[in-house]
Structure formats: structure tokens, C-alpha cells
């Protein structure tokens, strides 16, 4: 039976258990003088029974699905005939794939060696056993749970606290998913990165000036080694982000100041949501806009001034990214500016300062930590932004600070290295995870620092 069928069956059993448990509690209560003689409401007895019936089997099912395949695979390989026994990890995976495909019937059996077919049959047999034993065990577990749950029902049994305890633990498990996600990210990028750093030293990766991540098809071909020096990528990322910040910071900040300090209520209610539209547009749309409208426009503009602008210039990608970040900066800055106490403005105005002088000399300095925190969050967004640079920035890793030239970024390289069919353990794919690790560390530090500043600043004026 398929896992999904078992799942549906278990839910059906749970519902059945609920009715049985509730009915039993009612039956117990009736001779005693109605449900007020019970500790909890009848439905809690029902839920209690349902939990007993379904939860153990569900946990079993989940564990089974995780460990099922690896166990079967190792048994099959262990029992395989010596003539196909794998010598290293690569051939191990290849063999496993082949046997799996044979067992699934994807690969035709004709023309395969006898030991391979035997291994495939062995796999089919084990899978069948696993499926049936899972079904059987799940049914036994839920039947046993059902009887256990039913037998515990008595007039003095405290069903509600028991049910609530389980539910609270379920809620806790949901909350902990955030931790598991973080853990999953760290483990997945760290594990692959360590593998990568085994073949390429960390110092070569972090300080190397040459990025050309091809791997050899033949041993003796030109450039077969591939070099993984990530400095050009870091420089490219910084260049694009710097262009984005040059566009976004002044415009975002000035519009926040205007909206918070000068604009009438009517202008505010129209202009603020209109600016926020920019934040809701998907990045792939910005990428299309940058690649097909802004980049050709800048190239033509440049050539009319006698400048050579690359058609994948950092300027186009960064400029459009800046436009995307404007609402991010403006809404964060708006929050901190309106949080500055009115008494500080009143004091400055009473001394005869004009409004703009008040803003520049009093409000902005008071709001500066918050604004800096917001800008740092924006920088972390710019560094991690992917689609705009994938579509509008180049592929060639160049070490340049010229925004009219084409550069490549960390995120572009991750996408290029990982789309398409590569072997999973080639240094080329692993390099993407090492880049991901760098990206994660940098954005994490920026975020923690920025959130810390913003939080501290908020407490200051509250």
C-alpha cells in the first residue's frame, strides 16, 4: 500500500476513534447521572482516543519513510554479486541508480548482466516486504492505540489536560521548525562546502583572483584544472550593490523625509502605497525590465556620448535593483523618522530653526541608528538578490570597478553552476554551495547587526 493511502487510512481511523471514545465516555456517564459526572467534556475523551490511535502510527510512518530507502539500498548493495560490487562512491551511486531504474522498469531488462537483474529483483522483493510490513505495523499500532485509549476512559479520567498537553507539544514542534530550517540551511551548505574545501583550499577560494569553474572532461585538456578564486565575484557583487545603494539611498531617504515631515495627509495616502507597489513586483519582472529596456537604453546613451557601455553593464542591473530597494528603505526610514519624539522637533522650531534645518540637524541625527540599520538590511537584500543579476548582469568573472563594464556576482554563479545536470559531487557543483555559505554568513551578520541596532534604537524612544 502507498504511504499516502496509509495516511488517509490513519486519518479515517482517527475519526472513528474520536466517535468511539466520545460514545464510550457518554455511555460511562449515562448511569452516573449525565456528562457533568465526567471530568472533561465528551469530545475531549474522543480526541484523546484519536490521538492514541493515530499519533504512534503517524510517527512510525514518518520514520519509516526516512529510513526505508537507505536501508534497502545498503542491503541490496551488500548482497550484490561480487562482479558488480562498487569500488568507490561514484560507482556506488551509479550502480544504485542502475539497479533502481531496473527495479522501477524504467530501464529495459534485456541485455543487462545476470547479477544486475538479480540485484534489481532483490530490491523489488525488499520493497514489497517493507511496504507490507509498514502497512501491517501501522494497522497494529493504531488498533492497539485505539484499545488502549478506550480502556483508559473513566469518569474521573482527566482527558482535557492530557489532550491539551499533546496539542501544546504539537504547537511547540511547529515553532521549532524555524530552528530546524536554519539548521538545515547551515548543515546543507556547510557539509557540501567542507567537501569542496577538501579539493580547493579555503585560502585559494577566498583570496584567489581567477574564477573559471570548468572541470575537465579529459585529463589532459587545456584549463582542465579549473580555478575557484572568488574575489572577482565578491567585487562584482559589491559593485552592483554599490550602484543599487547609490540609487536607492538618496531617493528612498528623501521620499521618506518628505512623506513623514512635509506631505499632507492626502499626498501620503496616495504616494505611500504607490511607492510600495515597487516592493510587490516580482524580481524576475525587474530582471526582464533591466535586460530588455534599461540595458539597451544605457548602451545607446553611452555610445551617443562616445562611451562603450557593455550591454550587460553593472550599471543597468544595479540601477534597477536600486529602484526595487527604494520602497524598502523609504518605509524603514519612515518608521524611524515618525518615531522621533515631537518634543525634539518643537524644541528646534522654537529656537527659530526652519523646518529643513530641524530635519537635518535634529530629526536625522536622532533617527540615524535606525536609518543605518535599515540601509544595512537593504545592503543584505542587494547582495542576496538573484533574478535581476542573473538576467541583466554578465557571466564572465572580471575584476573591475567600472560600472559600465559587465561583472558577475555570487548569486549569478550559484545559479549558473546549479542549473542543468551535473554530477552532484563535482567541485563545480560544490563550489556553488561554498558560495552559498559565503552569502549566508555575510547576510546573516548584516541582518543580526542591523536588527540589533534597530531594536536598540526603538527601545530608546519608547
Amino acid at each position, binding site marked *: 500500500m502507498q504511504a499516502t493511502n496509509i495516511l488517509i487510512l490513519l486519518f479515517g481511523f482517527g475519526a472513528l476513534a474520536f466517535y468511539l471514545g466520545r460514545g464510550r465516555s457518554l455511555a460511562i456517564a449515562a448511569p452516573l447521572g449525565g456528562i457533568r459526572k465526567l471530568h472533561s467534556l465528551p469530545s475531549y475523551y474522543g480526541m484523546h482516543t484519536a490521538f492514541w490511535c493515530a499519533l504512534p502510527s503517524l510517527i512510525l510512518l514518518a520514520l519509516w519513510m526516512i529510513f526505508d*530507502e537507505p536501508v534497502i539500498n545498503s542491503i541490496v548493495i551488500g548482497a550484490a554479486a561480487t562482479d558488480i560490487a562498487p569500488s568507490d562512491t561514484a560507482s556506488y551511486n551509479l550502480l544504485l541508480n542502475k539497479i533502481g531504474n531496473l527495479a522501477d522498469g524504467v530501464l529495459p531488462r534485456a541485455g543487462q548482466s545476470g547479477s544486475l537483474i538479480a540485484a534489481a529483483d532483490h530490491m523489488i522483493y525488499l520493497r514489497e516486504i517493507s511496504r507490507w510490513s509498514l502497512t501491517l505495523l501501522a494497522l497494529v499500532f493504531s488498533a492497539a492505540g485505539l484499545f488502549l485509549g478506550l480502556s483508559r476512559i473513566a469518569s474521573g479520567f482527566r482527558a482535557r489536560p492530557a489532550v*491539551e498537553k499533546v496539542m501544546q507539544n504539537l*504547537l*511547540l514542534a*511547529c*515553532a*521549532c521548525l*524555524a*530552528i530546524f*530550517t*536554519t539548521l538545515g540551511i547551515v548543515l*546543507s*551548505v556547510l557539509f*557540501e562546502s567542507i567537501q569542496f574545501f577538501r579539493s580547493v583550499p579555503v585560502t585559494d577560494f577566498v583570496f584567489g583572483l581567477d574564477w573559471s569553474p570548468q572541470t575537465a572532461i579529459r585529463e589532459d585538456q587545456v584549463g582542465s584544472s579549473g580555478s575557484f578564486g572568488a574575489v572577482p565575484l565578491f567585487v562584482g557583487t559589491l559593485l552592483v550593490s554599490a550602484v543599487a545603494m547609490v540609487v536607492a539611498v538618496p*531617493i528612498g*531617504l*528623501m*521620499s521618506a*523625509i*518628505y*512623506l513623514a515631515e*512635509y506631505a499632507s495627509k492626502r499626498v501620503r495616502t496616495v*504616494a505611500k502605497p*504607490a*511607492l510600495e507597489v515597487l516592493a*510587490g*513586483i*516580482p*524580481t*524576475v*519582472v525587474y530582471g*526582464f525590465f533591466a*535586460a530588455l529596456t534599461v540595458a539597451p537604453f544605457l548602451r545607446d546613451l553611452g555610445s551617443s556620448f562616445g562611451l562603450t557601455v557593455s550591454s550587460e553593464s553593472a550599471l543597468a542591473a544595479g540601477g534597477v535593483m536600486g529602484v526595487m530597494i*527604494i*520602497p524598502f528603505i523609504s518605509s524603514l526610514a519612515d518608521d524611524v523618522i515618525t518615531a522621533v519624539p515631537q518634543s525634539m522637533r518643537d524644541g528646534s522650531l522654537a529656537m527659530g530653526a*526652519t523646518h*529643513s*534645518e530641524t*530635519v*537635518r540637524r535634529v530629526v536625522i541625527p536622532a533617527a540615524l541608528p535606525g536609518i543605518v540599520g535599515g540601509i544595512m538590511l537593504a545592503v*543584505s537584500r542587494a*547582495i*542576496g538578490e*538573484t*533574478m535581476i543579476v*542573473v*538576467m541583466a548582469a554578465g557571466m564572465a568573472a572580471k575584476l573591475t570597478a567600472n560600472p559600465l563594464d559587465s561583472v558577475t556576482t555570487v*548569486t549569478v554563479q550559484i*545559479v549558473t553552476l*546549479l*542549473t542543468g545536470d551535473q554530477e552532484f559531487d563535482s567541485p563545480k557543483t560544490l563550489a556553488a*554551495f561554498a558560495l*552559498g555559505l559565503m*552569502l*549566508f554568513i555575510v*547576510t*546573516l551578520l548584516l*541582518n*543580526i547587526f542591523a*536588527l540589533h541596532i534597530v531594536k536598540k534604537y526603538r527601545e530608546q524612544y519608547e
Partner: protein
Amino acid sequence: MNKSVDNLSKIKRSLTRRNRAEARFQWYGRVAIFIGLAAVAVLFIDIIGKGHGAFQATYINLNVSYDQELLGIENLSDPEQLVMGNWDALPKLALREKFTDVSGRRDKRRLYGLLSNGAGFDLKDRLLANPQLLNTTESIWLLADDDIDTYYKSWLDGEAYAARLSDKQVVWIDQLHEQGLIHLQLNSNLFTRGDSREPEQAGIRGAVMGSLLTLVLTLMLSFPIGVSAAIYLEEFAPKNKWTDFIEVNINNLAAVPSIIFGLLGLAIFINFFHVPRSVPIVGGLVLTLMTLPTIIITSRAAIKSVPPSIREAALGMGASKFQMVLHHVLPLALPGMLTGAIIGMAQALGETAPLLMIGMVAFIVDIPGSFTDPATVLPVQIFLWADSPERAFIEKTSAAIMVLLTFLIIMNTSAVWLRKRLERRW
């Protein structure tokens, strides 16, 4: 006396300077807002200007005779014969009959190039739906090739783009136009077909279905989990280091670049758990993890906004803490949570980068029908089309963007409407 007059005139002079600075400062603000709004306007005008044409397609009217011998088919209900049938011969013959003076291989090939190479299959579908048409002749509008489509549209707009056409083709189109045998009509292919290498046959149906399946899964997973986590953190969590740790994690996850979630999906779901690539399940899982922080944060805000007096009243009446939460706090916080869920879904709908990592970037012609069919999603389809060299795909891409933006606008306005309509002020 003299000194104070001196001071006064000094102040007056400086005052004009300061007032000018004030006016300048205000103008900086106005210009900044204007630039922001202009960016919105330019973006929308550019996309609509490029994409509006894709909602119409060029069709050519020809007299097609469904000749049994030409097709090489005897029995319409025999699938083997249908596969072997020479369907391309039908439109080719119709074109040769229309332009009888064309001879020579190259010219003939150009002539056949007027029509989409899927025209034969369109005729097959039509014949199968109406078997009585066999051995009859009818006048029918057939889909033109994408280069013809681009040329005809640009020619109607007054700036003909004939770079990919031969002179003869231009002449033929002129003839057809004079006879009224070429025209634009609603491009239903765009909405009814999956992806294709031929721009004129490509549609967004597959991508829209893929997006729908992925989003349904994301919503089914992330909303219950997110709301549960928010309830725990707001109502049950003890104030300790562990709770602080969970909170820091959630806030950080909200700011982690989306591509990192793609790496997570690739390493954990695909390589470790062996979930198949390119299917809505794995896309939904990755997007769930990505949207969870958003949903948790907005749900917590919604729970926080329920006044403590409600909780105290429920507890005072003897409700348990769980009954208080489930019967009183949750219903009151639900509109705020739904708003958060819609915003999270809008974010997930527009997301591209993590899906590239987990193989949802494949070229998929079939329209996905279940969670385990290979699929792509609308933003990834946009990315794929934007990368295609054919000029006609620019128009298609813009049209797909218009569809995507329409969905997003509907979602976001409904979130705003829901908040205004259902949210209670205490």
C-alpha cells in the same frame, strides 16, 4: 543701536538664504517621490507596451481540403494510422493552391514558412472533432508563423520589421492582406497551451497550473504551521532563552536571501530525501519554508492586537487556556492572519530563484495535473522565455508578466480589502 540694526539686516539677509534652502530641501523630497512614482509608471507602460500585442495572433485564411489519399488514412479511429498520417501535407497543399505560381524548393519552403509548423496538428484535431469533414473542403483560419506574426503586427503599427523575412514572403503577405485573408484574432493559444519552442504555439497554461499546484501545497503547509507557531510563541511560550532563540531564528530567516532556500531544497529534499526534481511537491516545500517567517510574524501581530480583556473574560468564565485561545483569541485574530497568509502567498507566487535550484526550470510541454507531475511556474516561465532568442518571445514574456502582475494585484488588493473589512479596532 547701530549694532542691533546691523544684526537685524544680517538676519534678514540670512533668512532669505535659509528660506531658499528650505524650499530646495522640499523640492529634493518631491523630486525623490516623483522619481519613485515615475519608475512605477515607466515599468508598467514598458511592459504593457511590449506585451499587449501577444493577446492577439496572426491567422491566415486558406481553403483546406481534407483529402483522404493525401493524408494516407483510411480509418479515423485507428490511432496507428493517425500517428503515421501526413498531416503537414494539408496546409502545404492549401498554400500551394493559394499561390499557384510558386516553384522551386527554396521558394516552396518559404511559402510553407508562412504558417506555424503546428498547423497540420491543429487540422488533425479539427478533423478528429468533426469526422464528417473528411474528403471535403473548407475555408479555415490557420495560425501563422511567429516571424510572420511579428512582421504583420509591426507592419500594421507602421514600422515594419522584416529582418527575418524574405522579399517574396513580404509580397505574399501584402497579397493576403489586400484580399482580407490575413488578420489578427484573439490568441487563445496563450491561455490554453503549455510551453513550446515555437513562440506562436507557446502558452502559459502549464505554468499557471504549476504555480497553482505549488501555491496550494504551500498554503496547506505554511498556514497551519505558521499559525500554530505564532499561537505557541504568543500565548504559551515561557520567557526563556529557548524562546528567544526561536524568535531570533524566525527574524533571521525572514531576511535570508531566497536563493539560500533553493540550496537547502536541493541538498535536503532532493539529495537527502530523494524527492523527485521539478515537481510541485518540492517547490511547495521550499516555498513553505520561505514564507513561514512572514506568516508567523504577521500572525503574531494579529494575535497581539486582540485585547487582554477578552482573554481575561474567557479565563474568568472557567475556560482552560487552550479553550480561551481556540474559542476566543483565534477567531478574532483570523482576519489579520489571513491577510498575512495572502501576502505570503503573493511573495511565493513571484519567487523565482529558489525554484531554479530545484529543477523547476525544465522545458515542460505537458500541462501538470497533479502534485507529482513535472511542472514549472509562471515566474520561471517568464525567465525561460526572456532567455529565448526569438524576437516573438519578448511579446510573450511581457504578456506573461502582465498575467502574473494581474494575479499579484488581485491578491494584494484583496488582502487590503480583507483588512479594512474584517479588522476590528479595539
